[in-house]
């Protein structure tokens, strides 16, 4: 069944640029599909041929180890060819514009581009210029959709649901694409989101995205099911967002004293890489009973396999995203999967 095509469970988008705008059903399709890959990835033989013959290009304009590796593994386990294009070796350094790069790559007929870029909106701009599917691997502080999906998958597998949960996202919200994607996803799926950070790291009018804002860790964490810590980027120290690491950890670092305010079985999440002793105490991070940080990494590969599969599946439908009216649910039952 894990090798099944998605003829009847259709994800009606050509690209995955962000979580914003996805329906609960669409998110569920992605999560359900990811679920099957979790099992596949735990087997000795992890590789299938679903994407055999396809070309996936990892186009990273920003440093990344985890996300790039995760996409690389996902693509290879589905049997596709994969090329990593790192910024340092690309012609971007020679002055080529983002759009020129996109056009050049497009001419090589890739099937999927996985793009990370330091500027918000850059991935969308690129997606408008190519014929293949584009997956946003993180654009500036804007979105990181596969991270939110893997977080959701981790939560769903642990707690059986997303709806009705109380989730605290703590740390540098202002600069975090992980936070933005998670806010969209959790809200869409019916969870309640709290943001906890010093005021300098909370974006303006973020309440209008449907979240509650706290500046006190103990109060914000109270009764939460999930405590999601964000990485604090050291370069934030220079822009007067914060006075010092010492002060940040004292007030906003997750330790057992602060965690005691959450539900007794609250899960701890972190998108990685962690700064131990900055946003999270080492003991808490390594608490096997509560920290699901390793599990998040595992879910990452499964989620990316599902996204790659569902988007390439759409390519077969004529290189066009199916218009909503033409969604194929009419005469085919949604839940059943058929073999290709």
């Amino acid at each position, binding site marked *: 069944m894990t090798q099944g095509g998605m003829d009847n469970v259709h994800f009606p988008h050509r690209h995955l640029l962000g979580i914003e705008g996805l329906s609960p059903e669409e998110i569920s399709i992605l999560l359900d599909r990811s679920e099957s890959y979790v099992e596949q990835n735990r087997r000795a033989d992890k590789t299938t041929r679903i994407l055999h013959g396809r070309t996936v290009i990892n186009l990273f304009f920003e440093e990344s180890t985890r996300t790039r590796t995760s996409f690389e593994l996902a693509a290879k386990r589905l049997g596709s060819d994969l090329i990593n294009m790192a910024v340092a070796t690309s012609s971007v350094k020679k002055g080529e514009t983002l759009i020129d790069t996109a056009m050049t790559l497009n001419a090589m007929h890739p099937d999927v581009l996985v793009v990370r870029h330091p500027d918000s909106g850059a991935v969308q701009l690129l997606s408008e210029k190519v014929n293949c599917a584009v997956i946003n691997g993180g654009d500036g502080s804007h979105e990181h959709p596969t991270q939110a999906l893997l977080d959701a998958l981790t939560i769903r597998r642990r707690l059986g649901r997303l709806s009705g949960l109380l989730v605290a996202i703590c740390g540098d919200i202002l600069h975090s694409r992980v936070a933005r994607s998670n806010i969209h996803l959790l809200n869409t799926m019916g969870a309640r989101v709290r943001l906890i950070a*010093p*005021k*300098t790291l909370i974006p303006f009018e973020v309440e209008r995205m449907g979240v509650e804002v706290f*500046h006190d860790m103990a109060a914000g964490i109270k009764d939460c099911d999930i405590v999601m810590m964000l990485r604090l980027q050291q370069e934030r120290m*220079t*822009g*007067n*967002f*914060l*006075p*010092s690491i*010492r*002060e940040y950890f*004292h*007030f906003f670092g997750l330790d057992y004293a602060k965690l005691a305010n959450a539900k007794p079985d609250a899960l701890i999440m972190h998108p990685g890489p962690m700064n131990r002793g900055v946003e999270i105490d080492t003991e808490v991070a390594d608490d096997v009973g509560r920290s699901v940080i390793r599990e998040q990494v595992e879910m990452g590969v499964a989620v990316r396999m599902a996204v790659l599969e569902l988007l390439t599946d759409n390519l077969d439908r004529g290189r066009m995203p199916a218009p909503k009216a033409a969604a194929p649910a009419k005469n085919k039952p949604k839940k059943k999967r058929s073999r290709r």
Partner: protein
Amino acid sequence: MSPRKEKSAGRTAYVNARLLDPASRLDAMGGVLIDGEAIADFGPHLAKERVAKKRGRGLPKDSRVVDCRGKCLAPGLVDMRMEIGDLGAAVRAAVSGGVTSMVCLPNTQPVIDDMSVVEFVARRARKQGLAKVYPYGAVTKGLKGQELAELGLLAEAGAVAFTDGTRAVADAQVMWRALSYASTFGLMIVQHPEEPSLAHQGAMNAGETATRLALVGIPTEAEVIMIERDLRLAALTGGRLHIAHLSTAAGIEAMRQAKKRGLNVSCDTAPPYFALNENAVGDYRTFAKLSPPLRAEDDRKAVVEGLRDGTIDAIASDHTPRDEESKRLPFAQAAPGGIGLNTLLAVSLELYHNGHLGLLDVLRLVTSAPAGLLGLRAGRLEKGAPADLVLFDPDAAWKVDADRLIGKAKNSPFDGRPVQGRVLMTVVDGRPVYRPQA
């Protein structure tokens, strides 16, 4: 433990006093009963030396009694802005002026931008056993106006609010982030309202006097521009902003309008700005070189009006001790600042004697109002609170003689001024710590 402390044991009753408590608007003949270091009871029922019968209201049998002879007994003064200089000299000057609590600027050596310094200052002040010293923390590291200091940790260590002292936080982005970050913890930022690029090399208020003396002037706009900028940043961030030592009509009007709009802001002034004007500079008198500078007469009147209508929330001494070497210089080179602890009460009482404010109103501006702004448990009569009191005669006349003022520095801008209002006794934690020499 200080030797003075031993005297505080037991009960002491101050009776036959005109009891003044600005916070509760109490003005009546009465008394205060002190048990150890705290106020045990106070009120009109203690006016006379009358020992309590069984369960009656009066003095316990073992009380020592001090007859106040009808003079004014009020909460000790709270000075929300002073530079510490020599700590021993500062606390002696303070109690001679009836000041029992004061908040020192962070421009100490070393700067109060680290938790250890907060604790050090508080501990050294406690050892003196005189006026209590609460520190401001620095807004920026080293008062350099660039990187935020550890406001949260400093507050936990005891910093009551944050300021860069005699320097404005000049960079708008730094001030924006400072207000925003401080509001995370509900902390107050106190700004020295002067746009430094407009005050550059300025020695006194810009105007005719400066022109005649050929001194570089600081326009009043330097104040109002900074205030209006910061009011907008306070509105943007929801941060708690306090503007220190207002000196100009325009600045006061900006604060008045901001308060009308409902912005949560406050401000203070200092005695020189309602008691003196730029004419005090006279013939290059460096004791009258202050920062902000003494302004024109219209500005002085506006300060009085600001105090009268409640726009200005408090009066601070702005005590800035300077040694002779830094004042005995050509005016442009002399250091700005004047001492103010000794004369805070007497000069503030001019507002009462001149009919601008009632006696309780004047006292409120130097007791419960500043204490309230900074969240200090001081400046009001309250059972169980530390017995910090001042006994004074509001009418006794004397002449300020800088050389005879208690303390070390002599740079009073009020030197030679006849004033009314004399401190007769200052009590800290139940101990009389100051009485004027006959």
